């Protein structure tokens, strides 16, 4: 089946510190908040516009961020129909996570195995 980049639902579980996207094709992606923050797609977190590609850097998967205001999700805001902005408790809110980026960020064994 073709990989869907259309989300069915999005859940930010602050209790489990986990961000869950259920995709239209039935796949469920579970992102620990630390991974989501490590993969913040904004220009300043990615080291400038010249380093920005549509997929996450491979390095974000080997970084482990623990609990801190910078990895505590404060709010999620829809950006039109194509993306989400995540607001962190340290005030950082520049990252616009589009669906393609989130789908390629899925850390599950099935998605990571293909790399």
């Amino acid at each position, binding site marked *: 089946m073709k990989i869907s980049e259309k*989300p069915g639902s999005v859940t*930010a579980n*602050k*209790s489990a510190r986990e961000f869950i996207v259920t995709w239209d094709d039935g796949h469920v992606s579970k992102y620990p908040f630390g991974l989501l923050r490590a993969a913040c797609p904004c220009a300043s977190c990615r080291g400038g516009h010249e380093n920005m590609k549509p997929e996450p850097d491979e390095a974000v998967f*080997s*970084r482990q*961020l623990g609990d*801190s205001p910078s990895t*505590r999700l404060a709010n999620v805001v829809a950006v039109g129909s194509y993306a989400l902005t995540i607001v962190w408790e340290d005030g*950082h809110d520049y990252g616009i996570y589009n669906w393609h980026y989130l789908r390629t960020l899925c850390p599950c064994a099935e998605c990571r195995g293909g790399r």
Partner: protein
Amino acid sequence: MDLRPYLNRWVILGALGIAGFLLLVTLILIGWTSPRFAPDVGFAPADLTMIPAPTHTPNILPTSTLDPVSAAATPEVDVIAAGGYVQINGTEGDGLRIRSSPGLNADTVFRGEEAEVFIVREGPQTADGYAWWYVVAPYDETRAGWAASEFLAVIPPP
């Protein structure tokens, strides 16, 4: 027919009031019956669920007389030690320079991110007024180097 006696100011004001009221009613009805602005969004904020964090209830320890033997056996929590876990803390989001050897003049191997977790391998060594620990990222052996303890917070093993 002479209408002038009927055209006093109250009649005019009343007519204006009724006209305004009818206009308002019309606008409300149009607003209710016209279709909502609903393009094919595919994803609407309604598809978003927020589950709040549990309200933090501090662990109130029972006031008991500590058994001196078990108290001595309890490892201290806030001390950095080889084999323990630490997290970069207090860099205001700037991250922390992880260096090739202890000391402020050593080369920066990479910049650890605020909140990034490391395993402590060895140390401490003192240099330039700081205690330095050799730390390694749990999932990337190449992400390793010396870090000043000033910006490391002890965390429990994940």
